[in-house]
Each structure stands twice: as structure tokens, then as C-alpha cells.
């Protein structure tokens, strides 16, 4: 991945995505006594994906709170805590289990400020390990970013790099409104440069990860990496792909995507969630009603998850979501106007 432009004065180190998130949480806990972590097995176990790690040792079990297995109650407790002065970071062990807490997230957290006419604030971060590829089958592999992206009152993020994982989490924590952060499980071990200290990555801004003239790919989470891999291959064939990392599903950065499509005239949306009504639908529709419409030289393509639950068998599981060769093939076709 192309390194983003970096201020040479800022120190960075190689951290994994999980370590970057842990660093952000540790800094937040140290800086602000109102910050607490809540979730199942985030204490001595260190979290199902070892993201909270040793934080309970540093901050104690009152600040790093193991909840009972009670997603609805736990999320609701976090809502009430946020409403009255704490700044909880609530970890769902898998984003799939948020299906149990939609009531509190969608009816309460997202709407509280509005229903109370601006008299209340719910500064709350939901962390959600998402996505397939771990062999955990249909109930542990879902990608729900489109659901939450459909809910006014929420902000919805999908960091794809360690740097953004930290910067977006800190931005979410500073945000006065509820933020849902999807962390792709296959990215937890990805290493990358992470700046020292407290910094925030702006919410609602996409990142151009690779510039190109021929075709735009908008991808999110792990698909950013697959798109970049595909772009490298295509470059060898003379096809110059621009890769945009969506980063934020709500709000979506219209400007960056429209500008890119005006330049390239071609767009593919790549995402892991189920294709129908997934985030690619929104991006496609947004372009089709924007001023970029007139610059389109080809249909807008979407590569998303197949119309099925995630299967257990590893080969089927791979086939259920876009892989780099799928992206490559689709982009080649579109660039060569074979669509």
C-alpha cells in the first residue's frame, strides 16, 4: 500500500492493526477518567481477538469491564453511561452479535439527541469485529456496515490500516455522537506505520490509496488491500487504476469519489457485505445522480458478497466474497469496455 504523505517530524512505528487499536484505547483510558471499555471477555482474556490485550492489567477491571453475555443489556448500559457522562467504548465480540442489540443502538443511541431536541448527547463507540475468512461460518462472519449506514444519528467507519484504526478510533472517541467502527478480523494482524501520540483521522473523508487515470475502484476494509493487489497486476497491463479507501460509510465522502469518477469515467465498488443493498449500491446510486453521471463511460459495476450466508467450507467461504482475482477480472473487463 502506498504510504500516505507523512510529516517527517511525526514519529511512527510498525504496529499491527490490533495493536494500534489497543494503543488508542490505552491512551484514551490514561487521558480521560470518563473513558471505560465494556465487552465480553475483554479483561483477563484480552478480547476474543486479543485487541484489548493487557489493558485490564494497566487500568483495572472497573475501567476495562467484562460484561455478562448480555449484548442488549450491555449496549444499553453503555448508552445510559454515555448519556450521563461516561465515554464508553463497547466491544461486540463479533459484529454478528449486534443483532441482539439493534434496539439500543438504533432506537436509543442513534435517536436520543434528536428525540430530545438536542438536549442530550450519546458519545459512545461501538467496536465490531466483522467479516469472513476465519472459518467461523454463517453466524460469525457477517458484514453489517450497510445496515448501520442506513441509520441517521450514527456514524459508521471501516478502517483498513493500522494508522487509520488508531486515528479513526480516537476521532470516534472525541465525537459527541455514537460511532460504529467495523474492524475486519483478517486485518488485526496487518502491520503498518502508526504515528505516535494522539491524532485523529477525520470522520467522513475517504482516502485515495493509489492514483490512476483509467478506472476508479472504491473499496472498504479488507477489500482495499485486495483492490490494491489487483491494481498492481493491472498496471502491468497498462491499466491505471485509482483505488479509493471509503473509510467512512456514514457520512460518505461524495466529493472524493465524484472527483475520481469525473477523471476516470469508470467505477467499480468492491465490498464484502452482501451485494444487494450493500454499500456499493449507495455509492453507485450517488454517482448515478451526481454531476459525475455525465462523465461515465461505462456502467457502474459492483462486486460484493454473494447472495448467501457465509458457508463453512473454506473454498466456498472464499468464493462467497470478492477476492483479488475477481476484482482484477472485473476491472480488466470494464477498462476494456467489455461490459
Amino acid at each position, binding site marked *: 500500500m502506498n504510504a500516505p504523505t507523512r510529516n517527517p517530524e511525526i514519529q511512527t512505528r510498525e504496529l499491527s492493526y490490533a495493536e494500534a487499536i489497543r494503543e488508542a484505547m490505552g491512551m484514551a483510558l490514561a487521558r480521560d477518567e470518563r473513558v471505560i471499555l465494556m465487552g465480553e471477555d475483554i479483561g483477563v482474556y484480552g478480547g476474543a481477538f486479543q485487541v484489548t490485550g493487557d489493558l485490564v492489567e494497566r487500568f483495572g477491571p472497573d475501567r476495562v*469491564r467484562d460484561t455478562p453475555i448480555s449484548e442488549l443489556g450491555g449496549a444499553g448500559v453503555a448508552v445510559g453511561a454515555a448519556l450521563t457522562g461516561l465515554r464508553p467504548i463497547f466491544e461486540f465480540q463479533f459484529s454478528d452479535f449486534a443483532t441482539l442489540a439493534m434496539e439500543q443502538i438504533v432506537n436509543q443511541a442513534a435517536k436520543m439527541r434528536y428525540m430530545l431536541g438536542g438536549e442530550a448527547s450519546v458519545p459512545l463507540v461501538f467496536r465490531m469485529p466483522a467479516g469472513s475468512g476465519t472459518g467461523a461460518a454463517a453466524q460469525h462472519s457477517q458484514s453489517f456496515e450497510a445496515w448501520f449506514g442506513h441509520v441517521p444519528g450514527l456514524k459508521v467507519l471501516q478502517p483498513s490500516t493500522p494508522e487509520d484504526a488508531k486515528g479513526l478510533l480516537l476521532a470516534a472517541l472525541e465525537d459527541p455522537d455514537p460511532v460504529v467502527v467495523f474492524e475486519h478480523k483478517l486485518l488485526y494482524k496487518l502491520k503498518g506505520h502508526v504515528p505516535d501520540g494522539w491524532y485523529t483521522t477525520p470522520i467522513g473523508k475517504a482516502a485515495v490509496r493509489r492514483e490512476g487515470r483509467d478506472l476508479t475502484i472504491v473499496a472498504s476494509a479488507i477489500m482495499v488491500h485486495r483492490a490494491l493487489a489487483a491494481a498492481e497486476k493491472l498496471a502491468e497491463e497498462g491499466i491505471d487504476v485509482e483505488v479509493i479507501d471509503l473509510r467512512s460509510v456514514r457520512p460518505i465522502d461524495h466529493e472524493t469519489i465524484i472527483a475520481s469518477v469525473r477523471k476516470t469515467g469508470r467505477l467499480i465498488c468492491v465490498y464484502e457485505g452482501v451485494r444487494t443493498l450493500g454499500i456499493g449500491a449507495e455509492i453507485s446510486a450517488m454517482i448515478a445522480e451526481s454531476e459525475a453521471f455525465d462523465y461515465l463511460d461505462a456502467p457502474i459495476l459492483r462486486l460484493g458478497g454473494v447472495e448467501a450466508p457465509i458457508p463453512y467450507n473454506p473454498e466456498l467461504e472464499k468464493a462467497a466474497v470478492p477476492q483479488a482475482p475477481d476484482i482484477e477480472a472485473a476491472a480488466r473487463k470494464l477498462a476494456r469496455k467489455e461490459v
Partner: protein
Amino acid sequence: MAKDDNTPFAIRRYDAETLREALRKMYLIRFFEEGAEDSYTRGLIHGTMHLSIGQEASAVASCLPLTDDDKITSTHRGHGHCIGKGAEVGRMFAEFFGKEEGYCHGRGGSMHIADVTKGNLGANGIVGGGIPIAVGAALTAKQLGTGAVTICFFGDGANNEGAFHEALNIAAVWKLPVVFVCENNKYGMSTSTERSTAVKDIAQRAAAYSMPGVTVDGNDFSAVAEAVQEAVDRARRGEGPSLVENLTYRWRGHSKSDRNRYRTKDEIDSWIARDPILRFREELAAHGVLDASGADAIEAAARREVEDGIAFAKGGTDPTIADVTKYVYAEARS
């Protein structure tokens, strides 16, 4: 009269001023709701509403031990709790009339009425939705050491929601300063507790969370005050949550669309005969706190307050249509 052991708890415990104020709030609730009902019938209020007429003792006596720093979470049947916690009826009416002067600037209406400045975190359109939120408020109090207590109101129907179970368990395991007040008015909408709830008294469920549970006559002001005060004291001492069940009854239908087919007129009448306001008034008189003319004056003042509140609301400002997306986020975004 001597404040001996036969003297009801409330008379023993609270001064005359506090007790008069409690009676005033009970009248305010009654007249507020009658006024709201009337305005609804006249087409001045749209949507629906859930009246708590007949349940005033529960709302007011439960809030008695609380200060403005303490919190409550309320329910769809939340007007009484809101007034009990100190809200002004004018701003409540303004909310029902959809005005900017309303507590929620006309965005919430009856089912979301709140007064955060007084510690009322809001009514809730979701049955059981407020229960975990109350526990969260108690977590804040414990974590930041504020000393505040939260009272969580909910109905008998709500006690069959998973949120009830999860939240009470968390509150107990974490020993949080919260009091769960179940207003058992015998029905969740049309469904009686016998047909919906596998225990006789909901307070029995407290044992499943190793917390004290007590069932009291919810139309007896003093009985409610005693049970809740004890639970609040316990919470403030850091000894954790309690469950108090107030047996009471709503005189009106569930909401504006109820045809009352699931209960008899006799049953309703028998509960109207147990009017908690009259009962409290008589108790105050019997113990020399307030004579009939004093009570009448309070009643009349409450009536006027409600009339003034309606007038205030009618004169309120309608929100600007362009503001439909205001308040979604802290700062407006396009």
C-alpha cells in the same frame, strides 16, 4: 398528632412542605393528563398518548427520595414520572403541541418527554428500552463517585422483555446504585399478568438477581414512599440495586385506541374507588398535615397551572420545516 409507629411512613419521615408539594404534584399529573386528553380529543394533539391517571401515587412517592442530581428513566406512560421529577407542565404541553418551547422542541412528543436538567432521562417508546439505560446511568454514578441514584420505572409487561433480565443481572453483579420500580397495573396493553408472566408477584423475580424485592400497594402513597426510600438509601450506601413493585391501575385505556375489551367495568370502577389522590389527601388530613381547605387550595392551584400550561403551549412556536434534520448530530451536517 404524635408521629408514632402507627403513623404512616411518609408522615413520619417528610416535613409538611414536602408532603404538600407531593399532593400538588399528584394533582398536577391528574389535571395535566385530563388536559392532554381533552386537547387530543379536540385535535390539538396528534399521535397517541398513554395516560397514567390512577397511578399518581407511584410516580410521585417514588421520586420523593430523589434530588435533581439523581436520575430517572421512564416509559411510554411517563407523564407522571416527568412531573414527579419536577418538570413544568407548560413545557410538557408545548411538547405535546409540537412546539419549539417543548422539552424536546417538538421532536419527541409524549413518548419521548424528558427533562434532562432535572435528571429525567426520558420516556421511552420501546417497552423495556429504558431499563438498561438506567443501569448505565447508575454505572456513571458509581464510576465517577457522584453519589447519584437512578430510579428505573417500567411496567408489568416490560418485565418479560430480555432487557429487564439482562439489565437487572448486570446491575446486581456490578452492585450499582439503581432502584427498579415496577408499576404493575395488571395489564400490558390487553394482556394480563396472569396470561403473560409466569410468577404471581413480579417482585419475586428479584431473587433471580439476589436483590431485595418487595410488593406494595401502589395506590398507598406512604407505602410506596417507604419502600422506595429504603431502596434508594440502600443504593446510596453502595449496597446495590433493589426491586420495588407498586400494584396500581390505569383508569384509562392503554392508549387512545383501546376499546377496553379485556377488562370489566366493575374492575375499573373498583379501582377508581381506590383513588390514590383522595387517599393521600385523607391521610394528610387525618394526621393533621393539611386540612380540607388547604388541600382544596392546592387542587385549585394545580388546575390553574395546567390551564396556564395549555395557554403557554398554544402560544408556542412551530418548528421550521427546514430544521427537520437539525439535532441529528451535534453539529448539523449537510
